[in-house]
């Protein structure tokens, strides 16, 4: 039994009104990658938080290397050699990369921190991991993706026996994901056991040895690599088969009206001369590597960030958008990629969040809000999007990540904008829900709404977008029609750093 | 206001007479001395007194609340020193309605209810400070004032008494600056230093209460000025001022007779309870003291530490 690293059995955990885990079990061997999958809210993160000492379990046993252990604090978990990359960012934005990685373990002489050694250690670690980051930059200036890389570096710096990764790739693009997989292979070879949580099914086959499936807080089963297939896993997860959608069947015709026209958009920090058009009923994909500037395009258009120049036309009329409320008033909504920071009122209930963008529709001339009508709307979206929440008056913070994302989507659906910019709409969302969101986007487009979909997942862009704009380094490097697009072509454009600009005139 | 006069006497006053004193403050040594006088006389008369006042002499509202609470306690008499002469009127009417006799000390309320007041003429005291300042600097030169308040009555009257006297009687003396340090020793010291810096020919500085005066003394000490370069005239008493006068840093100061105020107030209240009519105005006097007369019995009696 020396290969057994971790044996978990009979774990239950309840939160007020929610049974997050009931009698869950799994085991982890040395040198393997165990995938943990399940729909949003299935209890994956909760289980991992128990293993890393953040939550205490209500019942059950944890054997670590054959010994029963009581993991009562993050520190205990660290001491045992259990290291975790959290689903939600857990960095200190005002500290540097190096300071973040070694927080709590600073090399010191007496009370003094050996700053230079700290920086060197971090630099060595980052080089060893092949992560391109300056250890002395402040984390607050990094993009979500880079912050995620910092988290990964931090978790790997522990030389842990058990490494838990809770959706590590949800903010990463292909290249970073690839780096991570290489790291995982290397760690496996040294005998580390890895628990890997992801909603990206294609990743499972690539790196995992076994898959454990949870549904609604229950243990469903474990599949060995040999009898593992994606449809089978999905079926176990959702309890019913899901058919993979094909590429879009409808076409956007040249004759359709141009609803949004952006011309010569520039920002001080990144964007250079971004121009494009969006037609009625179109889903326009935005592809690119991390930091390519897609989010910045969206933010600049809606007036969330300053732009140095550029014009925006809506339905053929030049408009002046100085702040997000202007954009929304013109029927242009933006769903941010970072739901925790920019999407949700975490401390407020689901109802408040869903109605936030459309509150004026429920307000009379005196400023009074008609609560019941609003609640009906909220309930409708909770049902139709299958948001897993005890009620619409539950605090949003307590929802699982994926369900939080659905709340943000519901907010924008309730606002009924004609143009919607979805920035990474399926980040952290389970397969079942993803399909629902895809269908939803298609329906919206079919109704005549126009959609910009920024996504780092190439399959999803290919599946949904009528046209695909590829960005690199703040520029548009290519525009592809769906029929001519392929992953290889997109990647080709996504990696043109501007020197080859002439070559990509389309 | 007192709707329920169902004569339930407040606990503890069935035998012992109880007089509630509402002062303008309690933290300054001046008020502590008033308190001391009141307690001395109360002990002698065998009555109970309580003494309270707001933390700062700007808190008119808080003082009214104290007065209201005092009335609700149904004492046998109330002694009151008004922070504002008008705001107190309705509450004194309420006291009258509750048949509680009221006497005043230090500063009065524009009301017919109070039977007497024990106080000092602060303007005259300020004028006496001016006379002494003029005498000490030889009747001419620049003088500055560090005040403790530009709004409460003692602050204003001690300042105005000084200023008016100088204007009226000493045309060669120029008051070059008046600033206010809230009676905060540190602030007053910094103000005095700034004044001395800004007016190199400054002959004298007048501080209108203990904190202001000691601030000036500290400033002179910190600047290491030769004794007598700037003539310091203070107000009130206290250990530090007496020391400064002994050592010669301060030329002298005006003291009122706060212990006497406290004694007279309790006495008047006691008389009122007993049905005697106390004297309408009890002037407890004020005195100039300096190194020469400080130890004299009549002066030593009104000084307090």
């Amino acid at each position, binding site marked *: 039994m020396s290969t057994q690293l971790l044996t978990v059995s009979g774990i239950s955990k309840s939160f*007020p*009104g929610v049974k997050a885990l009931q009698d869950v079990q799994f085991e982890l061997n040395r040198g393997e990658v165990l995938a943990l999958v399940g729909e949003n*809210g299935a209890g994956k993160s909760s289980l991992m938080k128990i293993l890393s*000492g953040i939550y*205490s379990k209500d019942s059950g046993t944890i054997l670590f290397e054959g010994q029963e252990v009581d993991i009562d604090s993050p520190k205990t978990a660290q001491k045992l050699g259990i290291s975790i990359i959290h689903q939600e960012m857990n960095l200190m934005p005002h500290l540097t990369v190096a300071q973040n990685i070694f927080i709590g373990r600073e090399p010191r002489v007496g009370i003094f921190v050996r700053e230079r050694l700290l920086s060197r250690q971090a630099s060595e670690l980052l080089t060893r991991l092949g992560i391109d980051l300056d250890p002395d930059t402040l984390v607050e200036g990094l993009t979500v993706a880079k912050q995620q890389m910092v988290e990964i570096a931090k978790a790997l710096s522990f030389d842990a026996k058990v490494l838990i990764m809770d959706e590590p790739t949800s903010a990463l693009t292909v290249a970073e994901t690839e780096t991570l997989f290489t790291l995982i292979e290397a760690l496996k070879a040294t005998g580390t056991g890895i628990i890997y949580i992801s909603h990206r099914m294609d990743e499972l086959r690539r790196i995992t040895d076994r898959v454990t499936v949870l549904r609604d807080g229950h243990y469903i089963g474990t599949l060995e690599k040999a009898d593992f297939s994606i449809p089978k896993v999905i079926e176990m997860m959702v309890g019913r088969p899901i058919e993979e959608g094909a590429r879009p069947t409808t076409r956007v015709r040249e004759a359709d009206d141009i609803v949004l026209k952006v011309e010569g958009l520039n920002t001080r920090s990144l964007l250079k001369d971004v121009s494009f058009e969006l037609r009625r009923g179109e889903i326009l994909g935005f592809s690119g590597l991390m930091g390519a500037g897609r989010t910045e395009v969206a933010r600049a258009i*809606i007036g*969330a960030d300053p732009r140095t120049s550029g014009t925006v036309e809506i339905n053929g009329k030049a408009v002046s958008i100085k*702040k*997000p*409320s202007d954009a*929304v008033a013109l029927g242009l909504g933006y769903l941010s990629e970072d739901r925790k*920071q920019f999407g*949700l*009122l975490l*401390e*407020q209930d689901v109802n*408040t969040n869903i109605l*936030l*963008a459309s*509150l004026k529709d429920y*307000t009379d001339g005196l*400023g*009074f*809000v008609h*609560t019941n009508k609003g609640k009906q709307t909220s309930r409708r979206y909770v*049902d139709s999007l*299958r948001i897993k*929440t*005890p*009620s619409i*008056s*539950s*605090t949003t913070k307590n929802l699982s990540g994926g369900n939080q994302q659905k709340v943000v989507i519901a907010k924008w659906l309730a606002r009924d904008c004609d143009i919607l910019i979805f920035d990474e709409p399926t980040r952290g969302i389970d397969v079942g829900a993803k399909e629902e969101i895809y*269908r*939803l986007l298609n*329906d919206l487009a079919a109704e005549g709404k126009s959609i910009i979909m920024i996504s780092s997942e190439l399959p999803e862009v290919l599946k949904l977008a009528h046209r695909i704009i590829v960005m690199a380094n703040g520029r548009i490097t290519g525009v592809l029609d769906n029929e001519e697009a392929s992953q290889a072509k997109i990647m080709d454009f996504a990696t043109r750093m501007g020197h080859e600009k002439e070559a990509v005139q389309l | *206001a*007192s*709707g329920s006069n169902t004569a339930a006497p*407040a*606990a503890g006053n069935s035998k012992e007479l109880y007089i*509630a004193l509402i002062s303008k403050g309690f933290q300054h040594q001046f008020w502590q001395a008033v308190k001391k006088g009141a307690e001395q006389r109360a002990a002698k008369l065998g009555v109970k007194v309580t003494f*309270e006042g707001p*933390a700062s002499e*700007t*808190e*008119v*509202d808080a003082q009214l*609340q104290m007065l*209201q*609470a005092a009335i*609700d*306690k149904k004492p046998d008499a109330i002694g009151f020193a008004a922070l*504002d002469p008008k*705001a107190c*009127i*309705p509450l004194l009417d309420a006291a009258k309605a509750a048949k509680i006799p009221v006497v005043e000390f230090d500063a009065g309320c524009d009301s017919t209810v109070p039977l007497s007041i024990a106080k000092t003429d602060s303007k005259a005291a300020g004028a006496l400070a001016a006379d002494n300042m003029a005498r000490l600097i030889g009747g001419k030169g620049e003088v500055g004032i560090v005040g403790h308040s*530009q*709004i*409460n009555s003692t602050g204003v009257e001690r300042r105005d008494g000084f200023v008016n006297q100088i204007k009226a009687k000493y045309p060669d003396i120029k008051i070059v600056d008046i600033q206010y340090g809230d009676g905060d020793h540190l602030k007053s010291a910094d103000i005095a230093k700034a004044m001395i810096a800004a007016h190199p020919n400054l002959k004298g500085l007048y501080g209108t209460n203990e904190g202001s005066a000691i601030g000036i003394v500290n400033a002179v000490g910190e600047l290491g000025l030769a004794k007598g370069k700037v003539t310091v005239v203070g107000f009130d008493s206290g250990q530090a001022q007496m020391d400064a006068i002994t050592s010669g840093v301060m030329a002298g100061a005006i003291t009122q007779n706060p212990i006497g105020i406290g004694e007279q107030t309790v006495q008047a209240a006691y008389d009122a309870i007993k049905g005697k009519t106390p004297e309408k105005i009890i002037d407890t006097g004020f005195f100039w003291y300096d190194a020469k007369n400080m130890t004299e019995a009549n002066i030593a009696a009104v000084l307090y530490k």
Partner: protein
Amino acid sequence: MNASTVDTRAPKIVDPETKKTRSVSNFLQAKLQQSLAFATLVVLLIFFSFANTAFFTWSNISGILLSTAVIGILALGTTFVIITGGIDLSIGTGMTLAAVMTGIFLVNMDLPLIVGVLGGIATGGLMGFISGFNIAVLKLPPFIATLAMMLIAQGLALVISGVRPIYFTSVPDFKQIALGTAIPGLPNAVLILFGLAFIAYLVLSKTILGRYTFALGSNEEATRLSGVDTRRWKIMVYTFSGLFTGIAGVVIASRLDSAQPQLGSGYELQAIAAVIIGGTSLLGGRGSILGTLIGALIMSVLINGLRIMSIQTEWQNVVVGAVILVAVFSDSLRRRKAIF
């Protein structure tokens, strides 16, 4: 979106039972601090009633209510500001400036009563507006923006009044605003307090301003990106709160029958303490009017009780500080989510 396209056979994940348990527990959690504050209030009332018979008399109770009025009105307004995650340190001296301006309007300029009163209230609103502008548009931190406003208001009150109280003797009706008794035995100031509390309650829980107040305090950036003009609404919140400061200025002037230009500093901390004791979080996003009312009452009952018991003034602060700690500790019980 066309809801019918979504699989409506999707199993309901939540059964009615859990829903109920959950919302009951949520409700309880939310009410806990309020109830504990309320419990503190009741304990104080009982304690003082037994400690001194003079305490539980109508005259004293109405005195307590009257002395709650000013701090209470300030606290009501500043509850909104605190829920947005901001703070307003200028309410104390701002109240004084409003009182002084009322005096200027009514006494020096001899304007009609209603005009003078509205002018005083508007003064408060204007200060709130300026603070709101500094905070929302110039992006100054609320603490420092309102600290500066506190100093400015304090200075202006002295300058404008000529460093001297303004007496309303020429306007005999003015006194009735606070001290008249539309309900016999109860000063109008108390009615004003409760009336304003009701209005504040309505605004906070029923109107769009209230909703956005909570939203701003929960996540301002998310609110902004949701198309809410956060700058405008933030200015509105500070202005609205400023109106309460103005009303407090009129009430205190009426109560004192004079505008005392040096009054006011220190009131802001008392009002903020009342708000926090009432369970409103300084981190924003959470709070209630009822809680604030209870918090203000705790403060004034406590201070009155100590006075009635003739506790020495120097000890009173110690006791008040200790009671604040205890009252607020209950709140922490709820938030304390240790490992268990």
